[in-house]
């Protein structure tokens, strides 16, 4: 039995379709992150699951019970779930403890038990001693921790997160992300979490769903989404160093040769069959696929990718993926602590960003860029409309 089952769900506001025929399964205990830019429909989908929005069509079930369908709509309070809101949605006239204990009223505990559970939940999120504070007397991070405690305290089987970290600064975001992941997994609840931050998505998710203009364009493990994006949109949204236009050449069974302004580079063909020789193609380059050539240059690293993601999968026959070397000029360098991220310009004016080096390269100094075929994703320039769902 799925924790959440969404079948062909559509939600329209007037003539605008916010969620377009989405189908999705969330297994019990699974952490699903819905990733997409603003306007992609991820918040609307989450609100449909919460019961805040009523789907225009389609079905939605939680824990095996139909929540939405033709003639059926269960209000949010009947769904036995909890939610953490982007703006925290704490009631400012209630103390932290009152906010948390509100969620326990449906559990029919007595007052003492509600209080002790609320205090325990607040302690678990690191807010022991602040239970008497009103939200206005807490910092942003503390407020979001109260919201997290409120969501966890009743131990629901489904937790929803609506970009809970987007209002926090970088330090607090990372701390709270770790806490959310740990607490949700400890609770064993299924979670649907939405974000527009791919790093956050890859770090938290068992499964990532990418939404584009209301459609679920890919639903897969983070590694798959990164390595085999279902579309150029998914590839771009999950991080690129840059893009190059070229013409397809020969295919050796796993890698495709691409002619880019007279230079040969190699890449992995996406979307099934490799394009025919002479077909115009676009090469989308992952940051991990590009590095500086030469003896002092570092090898590709797993930067910008969540821990656990393995990217050096090698070629189909087990040998190292082919590499291409291109001449470049350094345009910009940014100190990152571990070294420098560079923006370089290739001949023809195309730029690649996020190229690592241990040394700062001077402005307009010449360099060589090595592109590894595994991180160069080749898409045909013309793509027939394609829907990649489950």
């Amino acid at each position, binding site marked *: 039995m799925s924790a959440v*089952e969404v079948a062909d769900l*559509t939600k329209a506001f007037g003539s605008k379709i916010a969620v377009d025929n989405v189908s999705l399964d969330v297994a019990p205990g699974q952490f699903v992150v819905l990733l997409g830019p603003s306007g992609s429909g991820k918040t609307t989908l989450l609100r449909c699951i919460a019961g805040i929005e009523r789907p225009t069509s389609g079905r939605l079930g939680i824990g095996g019970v139909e929540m939405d369908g033709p003639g059926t709509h269960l209000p*949010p309070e009947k769904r036995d779930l909890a939610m953490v*809101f982007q703006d925290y949605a704490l009631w400012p*006239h209630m103390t932290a403890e009152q906010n948390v204990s*509100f*969620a326990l009223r449906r559990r029919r505990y007595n007052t003492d038990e509600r209080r002790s559970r609320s205090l325990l939940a607040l302690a678990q999120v690191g807010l022991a001693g602040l239970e008497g504070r009103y939200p*206005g007397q807490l910092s942003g991070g503390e407020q979001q921790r109260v919201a997290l405690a409120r969501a966890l305290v009743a131990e629901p089987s489904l937790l929803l997160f609506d970009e809970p970290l987007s209002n926090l600064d970088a330090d607090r975001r990372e701390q709270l992300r770790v806490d959310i992941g740990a607490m949700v997994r400890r609770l064993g609840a299924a979670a649907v979490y939405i974000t527009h931050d791919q790093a956050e998505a890859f770090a938290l998710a068992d499964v990532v769903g990418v939404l584009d203009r209301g459609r679920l364009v890919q639903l897969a493990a983070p590694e798959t989404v990164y390595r085999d994006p279902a579309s150029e949109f998914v590839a771009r949204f999950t991080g690129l160093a840059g893009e190059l236009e070229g013409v397809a050449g020969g295919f050796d069974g796993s890698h495709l040769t691409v002619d880019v302004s007279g230079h040969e580079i190699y890449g992995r063909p996406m979307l099934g069959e490799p394009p025919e020789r002479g077909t115009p193609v676009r090469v989308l380059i992952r940051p991990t696929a590009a590095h500086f050539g030469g003896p002092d240059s570092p090898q590709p690293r797993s930067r910008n990718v969540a821990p656990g993601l393995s990217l050096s999968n090698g070629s189909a026959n087990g040998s190292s993926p082919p590499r291409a070397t291109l001449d470049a000029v350094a345009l910009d360098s940014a100190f990152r602590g571990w070294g420098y991220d560079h923006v370089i310009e290739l001949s023809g004016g195309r730029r690649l960003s996020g190229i690592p080096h241990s040394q700062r390269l001077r402005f307009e100094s010449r360099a060589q860029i090595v592109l590894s075929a595994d991180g160069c994703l080749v898409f045909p320039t013309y793509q027939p409309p394609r829907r990649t769902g489950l």
Partner: protein
Amino acid sequence: MVHSPRGERLTRSALVARHRPGSRFALSLRQAGRHSPAGLARLGVAAVVVLLLVVPPACFLIQAVSPRLFDQGASWLTWSNVSTAFTDGLGRALLDSVAVSLGAGLLAVVCAAGLAFISERTTAPGRGLLVVALWAVLLVPSYLVAVGWEEIVLKSGLLASMGLWNHKIQQTVLGPVGVAFVLGFKGTPFAYFALAPSIGALGGDIENSVRVHGGGRLDTIRVIAPLLLPALMSGFVIVFAESIGDFGVATTIAASAHFPVATYTLYESISTFPANFGVAAVVGWSLIGTVALALVLQNGLMRSRSFAVVSGRSRASAPRSLSRTGNTVAVGFAAALFGASLGVPLLGVVSSSLLVPFKGLHLSSFTLSNYKGLLGVSGLSGPIRFSAEIGLVCGLATVTLGAVLARTMASSRKGLAGKVLDMALLVAVALPGVVFAAGYIFAYNLPFLAHAGIDLYGTVPLLGMAYVANSIPQSSRIMLGPFSQIHDSLLHAARVHGAGWARSWRSGVLPLLARPLLWAGLLAFSGLFLELPISELLAPPGVIPVSVAILSVLGKANIGQGTALSVVAVAFTLGVVGVCLGLFRLIAPPGWRHWQRPAPSREPSVESDAPTAATPRSESASRSDLVGVS
């Protein structure tokens, strides 16, 4: 696997097979055909508002050109009422109204800007009292302020008792200048509430950027002044509209000074026999048209320019500490202003009620006979009781309906009904009370209603309906700000965590709105308790509201008793306001009162970043919301 609530097992393929989405066109058709309960409720509310607010004035106003529509004349379309109105002096009255309203608007904006600067940008002593004093000005009706000034400058008034009477002073106060000043002082709170948030919110960075780029104080003013233009304009237009539609000063100072203004012309058209609704409707149109013109001019000035100065990143500038001279000037300015707008007229009313006329200012000339007389004069305690009762009932009805309307308008998805509502309320705000009253007299006196068994004309329920209809636009606008600031997520959070619709509102939202609702209720009650034009025109025979009683006693030259009744009425209003606010402080749970308080100083906790943008709004913002001005 999904189960229906009836336990039916539905596989994925079965789900898909049972429901295949159609084309987008079909989808929008399905949407259009489906009305949610909330949508129907909004439609219902809009219908009530249209019936209550739009239909009566519209029936009346149409008489200007089409008297036959409701059997009031022979022509379906005629301009004769227009020419008659102008022949009877509408042009002069309208010009007078516009002139004094322009003066009042300018005066109010200048005074309000000064007060807003003092309260928002300085540390002058007594700043906290400014808002209290402004609310007091707001609560006292214009006719009482006017009567107070009359009682100061008349030959039988306080100045005369002190031996300071002067004909020129009397002539100035009881003339166009006096009318403009009284209206300007009365409008100052409106202009203040429009201006103060902008003056307070003008980021310190804007000033700093002028200074660091070499600008002096004059340059800073030059940069900032245009940024305040929207607030200045809206303050001016609000006061202008209030002044154009004012009936209190029109029926007191202006009438006794034989200075005709448009609202009084309208009143005369329908209060003389036979009533001429056609001419009155023309006057009504001219009042509405004048306000509309002001709004159009305001929009024209604002169009295609951005005046946005407030953002999430704005940093308000720190209040400036004034020198001793500065503090003296600031306090003196505020004291002079409130003295003129409230102190002097109240002194006039109180002194008139306590002094024996023409006896000078001695201990022996003070008397309580007027107050004792109030108890003896038959019917004079009745008006207070009647107005209190109807004020309470209609005030509650106003706040309830106003809250529903504010919520509907604040909703992010208000739909067509919401837009109609918004427009109807905006138009109704611009409708003077006297036009409302005329509309109700006309519409509910139409023969076909009596034939249909709706015989409300000349009854207390009709008076109550008109009271509510006249108060709702202001009340809903007052609550619009606070309702707009309540994020839907607070309701959603309550629903998601197990509370039903009613408990979500009761526990999650209403406590946050308690204070604005209380203020809106008190304002509605005070306004209705002392309301004049509707009371004057719609009070049924044998029923005398307070305002009618006051003017009636004053009209019989029983000045002392009239002013004594005014003092009692105002004291009663302020007493009710004070008791309600006191009870709120005593009874309301701490969270209802303290949620806007800033963080107390504390030991560093887990995290020490300052409260974020999610923390509640500032004091000045809440004040502006309270009067619905943004």
